[in-house]
């Protein structure tokens, strides 16, 4: 029964002219599928919806949901944006769509098998040979497929839209490494948090079954080896990839290890995952890397992202890859011109879902048609790699148009002409109310033994501004949860539990690949660098304040030493070490630069960004709480005024120091003390040890007048959070020997160097290459050496004025040596556990074929 439009929210909604609308039908009535939601939205009103939107955005930010934009000058990540108004599809219409999608997936699967098999479609002329041979996605080294699988096409995705006549059609096919299913699930999880009752009462089909199917299918792909469970990994191009969030999210939701190419290695004809000191055999690779990048030996020589030798292992059937290598050949708009014939031939069926009318220019008649109707068509290349995107000839000037015609005539097989796409609009929350936005729905299918299973729902993307057809996330699009509305209450209660859980990290994967190890270690190191610099700047600003108040030479001398220490510690030379500059007299500009100059290596902002990037790469291993703090740091960093004023400084520093402390606390508190945790811990110990020895070197080695020294020692104690501890323990003003004991030698002060070495040793002993007491690993020896030297030292001897020697020499020697040993231990860890810094390289080309000329 159609509802009437009474409320302000709905009555103010005006569909876009010339486009069908999802909410309002042609007669101006609310579509029955939307009746319940429309009422609910009306009840919420504009303000209520805006509140929900804020809530959604907060959840998304806290969960760190991002979509990376390479070219974004504002930074690597862009927050994922989700509209509070979902996209709705009724059961009846969905049933037809689902059936049509299954047919299309079946068809694509059969075409893939034929292309990488007997190529009968080519011999029969049902598929022109050039569509295969001229397509960059056709990978000759992968021909023929030898798996004997019924469904080599594991995953298939299709972008759907609605034409002006109301029918749903396929805009685009995705077979390479379809993305978006994880975002669709994430959207659902977040909607479930923000509007649980609405979701429940709307009788929405659940998504969880799709992912169970995916898991089952991937397991079944494993080569038979008789082990209990298939070892599946998710191969990502890395944390800079635009959909990296999804890679990490899916990996942890499905319980698979997330790996980069360098984490995998081919040996003895198999693929192995490098994890600490051992190699674990890999059975199945769910790849989110384009297939040609997967193997620098056979597919794309310049690729550094893949696993050299992989193609051969796949050929031998010793590892399965989903989607299979070579599946990108199906991403070809020209297929549309031949699908009806192929469907008849292979299935004996009419094609159920239409696609835009398409003419392949390789066919002479079609080419002439396209050229004669050029202005009413769009021109598209048959593959994305050729560099060309969709061209709208109607918008070109004469010379560009002529050039296009020439190109089409010269290599017609590379182009299709297509009728421009139509889209429907869907209500989307704007500033003042609901606005119509054009929409595209990405749907997802996964192969099962008996056919394809469709995710009931999908990822809807809408344009940022009304009637803008660019809906990609890269263009800054907005997403919607997609609800397939059941006619009866959904009774999949058992699956609900899975769906409403976080999908947060489960740490089910015990494997710790080199890339993740390295990122954990460096995440902690960068955080420590930022933290120490912030703390020292805080001390400096306080001393600065005192200098202004008194301007005694003692204070001035103390300030200068601290400033030099800051430069040494942050590695921002020349900085305050450059005596020719005025920076010591007027330190504020340089101080602000060390804090905020993001391009400057060693600055606080630089280190925080590096810490964020590293954390991003190991997000599947961090708890939601940790992730929330990281989100807050990112947020705070992006809001910082540039440059900070001196008045703002103290507040910002305190806040960042607190956030970093929260990060460390949560690591301790919410992470399983596993290998991953150990590397965070060791990263912090190593960095804190290095920075503290540098700091003590700058402060303590050169003897000062008594007054200056006492002021400096106080500052040092303050910087290392040990002022109170000192005064509890020693009832006299700060003295060098007692300070050394507390900040350098002590193994119970969490800020002292000795403490770091003890912690480091303890953690090193838990690593796989740690040996029995009489056969220590290289890094263990180094740590033991450093720690023993400290333990055997006495402040009195370190500070002795030996007469002939330079004063402070024993201390300086000890600090320098400790620093060196720590740095070497870190390097030794890197050599053993991190990614091979060199990566794969091509053999230089051989001397060329020459050939003699008589």
């Amino acid at each position, binding site marked *: 029964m159609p509802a009437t439009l009474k409320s302000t929210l709905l009555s103010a909604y005006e569909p876009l002219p010339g486009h069908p609308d999802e909410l309002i039908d042609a007669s101006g009535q609310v579509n029955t599928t939307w009746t319940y939601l429309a009422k609910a939205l009306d009840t919420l009103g504009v303000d209520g919806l805006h509140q929900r939107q804020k809530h959604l955005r907060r959840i998304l930010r806290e969960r760190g949901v991002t979509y990376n934009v390479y070219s974004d000058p504002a930074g690597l990540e862009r927050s994922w944006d989700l509209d509070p108004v979902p996209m709705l599809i009724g059961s009846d219409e969905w049933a037809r769509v689902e059936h049509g999608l299954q047919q299309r997936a079946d068809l694509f699967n059969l075409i893939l098998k034929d292309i990488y098999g007997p190529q009968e479609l080519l011999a029969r002329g049902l598929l022109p040979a050039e569509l295969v041979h001229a397509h960059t996605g056709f990978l000759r080294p992968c021909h023929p497929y030898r798996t004997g699988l019924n469904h080599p096409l594991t995953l298939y995705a299709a972008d759907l839209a609605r034409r002006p006549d109301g029918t749903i059609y396929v805009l685009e096919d995705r077979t390479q490494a379809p993305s978006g299913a994880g975002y669709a699930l994430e959207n659902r999880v977040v909607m479930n948090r923000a509007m649980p009752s609405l979701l429940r009462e709307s009788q929405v089909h659940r998504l969880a079954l799709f992912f169970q199917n995916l898991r089952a299918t991937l397991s079944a792909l494993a080569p038979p080896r008789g082990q209990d469970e298939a070892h599946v990994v998710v191969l990502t191009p890395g944390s800079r990839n635009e959909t990296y969030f999804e890679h990490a999210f899916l990996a942890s939701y499905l319980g698979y290890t997330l790996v980069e190419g360098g984490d995998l290695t081919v040996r*003895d004809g198999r693929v192995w995952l490098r994890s600490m000191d051992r190699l674990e055999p890999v059975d199945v690779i769910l790849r989110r890397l384009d297939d040609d990048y997967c193997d620098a030996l056979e597919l794309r*020589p310049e690729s550094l992202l893949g696993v*050299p030798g992989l193609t051969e292992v796949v050929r031998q059937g010793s590892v399965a890859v989903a989607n299979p290598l070579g599946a990108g050949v199906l991403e070809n708009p020209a297929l549309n011109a031949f699908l009806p014939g192929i469907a008849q031939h292979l299935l004996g069926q009419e094609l159920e879902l239409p696609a835009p009318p398409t003419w392949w220019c390789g066919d002479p008649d079609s080419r002439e048609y396209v050229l004669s109707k050029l202005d009413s068509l769009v021109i598209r290349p048959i593959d994305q790699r050729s560099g060309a995107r969709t061209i709208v000839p109607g918008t070109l000037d004469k010379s560009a148009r002529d050039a296009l015609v020439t190109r089409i005539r010269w290599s017609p097989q590379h182009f299709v002409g297509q009728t421009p796409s139509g889209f429907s609009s869907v209500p989307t929350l704007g500033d003042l109310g609901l606005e119509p936005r054009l929409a595209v729905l990405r749907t997802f299918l996964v192969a099962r033994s008996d056919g394809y299973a469709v995710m009931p729902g999908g990822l809807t993307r809408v344009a940022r501004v009304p009637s803008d057809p660019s809906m990609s996330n890269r263009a800054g699009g907005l997403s919607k949860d997609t609800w397939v509305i059941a006619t009866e209450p959904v009774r999949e209660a058992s699956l609900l539990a899975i769906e409403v859980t976080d999908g947060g990290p489960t740490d089910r994967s015990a494997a710790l690949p080199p890339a993740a190890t390295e990122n954990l270690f460096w995440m902690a190191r960068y955080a420590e660098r930022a933290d120490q610099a912030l703390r020292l700047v805080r001390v400096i600003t306080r001393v600065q304040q005192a200098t202004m108040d008194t301007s005694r030479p003692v204070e001035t001398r103390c300030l200068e030493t601290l400033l030099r220490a800051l430069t040494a510690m942050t590695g921002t030379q020349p900085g305050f070490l450059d005596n020719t500059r005025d920076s010591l007299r007027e330190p504020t500009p340089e101080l602000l630069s060390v804090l905020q100059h993001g391009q400057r290596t060693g600055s606080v902002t630089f280190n925080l960004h590096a810490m964020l990037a590293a954390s991003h790469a190991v997000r599947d291993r961090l708890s939601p709480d940790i992730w929330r703090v990281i989100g807050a740091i990112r947020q705070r960093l992006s809001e910082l005024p540039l440059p900070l004023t001196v008045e703002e400084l103290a507040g910002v520093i305190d806040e960042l120091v607190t956030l970093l402390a929260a990060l460390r606390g949560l690591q301790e508190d919410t992470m399983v003390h596993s290998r991953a945790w150990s590397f965070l811990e060791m990263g912090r110990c190593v960095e804190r040890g290095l920075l503290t020895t540098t700091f003590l070197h700058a402060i303590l080695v050169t003897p000062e007048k008594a007054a200056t020294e006492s002021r400096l020692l106080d500052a040092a104690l303050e910087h290392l959070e040990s002022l109170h501890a000192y005064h509890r323990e020693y009832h006299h003003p700060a003295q060098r020997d007692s300070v050394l004991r507390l900040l350098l030698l002590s193994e119970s002060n969490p800020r002292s160097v000795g403490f770091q070495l003890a912690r480091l040793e303890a953690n090193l002993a838990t690593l796989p290459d740690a040996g029995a007491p009489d056969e220590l690993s290289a890094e263990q020896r180094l740590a033991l050496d450093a720690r023993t030297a400290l333990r055997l030292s006495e402040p009195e001897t370190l500070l002795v004025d030996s007469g002939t020697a330079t004063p402070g020499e024993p201390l300086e020697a000890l600090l320098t040596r400790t620093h060196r040993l720590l740095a070497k231990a870190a390097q030794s860890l890197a050599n053993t556990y991190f990614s091979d810094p060199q990566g794969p390289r091509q053999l230089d080309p051989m001397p060329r074929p020459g*050939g003699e000329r008589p």
Partner: protein
Amino acid sequence: MRYRVTHRTEYSYPRTIGRGYNEAHLAPRATRYQQVRDHRVDIHPMPAYRSRRTDYFGNGVLHFAIQQPHSLLSVTAISVVELTSPAASITLAEGTPWETAGAIISDDRSNSGLEARQFLLDSPLVETRRALAQYAAPSFPAGRPVPAAVSDLMGRIHADFAYDPTATTISTPLERVFRERRGVCQDFAHLAIACLRSLRLPARYVSGYVETTAPPGQSRLVGADASHAWFAVYDPALGWLDYDPTNNRMPGTQHVTTAWGRDYGDVSPLKGVIFGGSQGQRSEVAVDVEPLDAEEHNRS
């Protein structure tokens, strides 16, 4: 005519390589005029993994992986082949008029036709260009059969382009070869292929060896030969016909064929990916084409 071909490649690395993955196109192909009597590849150090397959173009490929640290890789292919002369050499009047050939092929769905059609298309190292079609045009007057036209094109490339091993490298674009009119056998083969494809005739790259004869009174220099490259064109009536633009003749009993593909990239004799080491690899190649029936050879 029997030959023993020895193709030895050595890579030396200034620093030790941990692992290496390689693919070699070193096995001679069996063809109408060539039989492979023996073929083996010796690799040092010993590969931990080794397998043979036939690639998409029907060439034999050897895949191997070395997993032990090494600073020297040596790959030696030793093959014995027997060549027979084409029964009757083609007269230039034979074959299909070139325009007709192009029209027949464009829609040919026979096995050989389908196979040939992929060699009409651009490939990574060979792009069709209008300028190349124009360069080739004088050799292709209306109605001229494919063999005569291609033979003429070969002669012109031989005359117009200087053989100069210093002029180009493996990555020199074809455009520059065309502009500067110099290069080596690989460049001439690519150029001819590009010309033919620009005229819509299927052309493929052939990799192999050519026997070099010593000047009278001197003995052959062992290992002085190099691997060689030429091209083949498809005539629907005659099939694939080989042409060697570097030496301006159709290969006969002195050309040993190893592999063919769209361009050099499909059939490079040895390629690989290595882990570890540093810049500054050095490589050396020695090829020796040794006639085994000296008497017969002297008579020919």
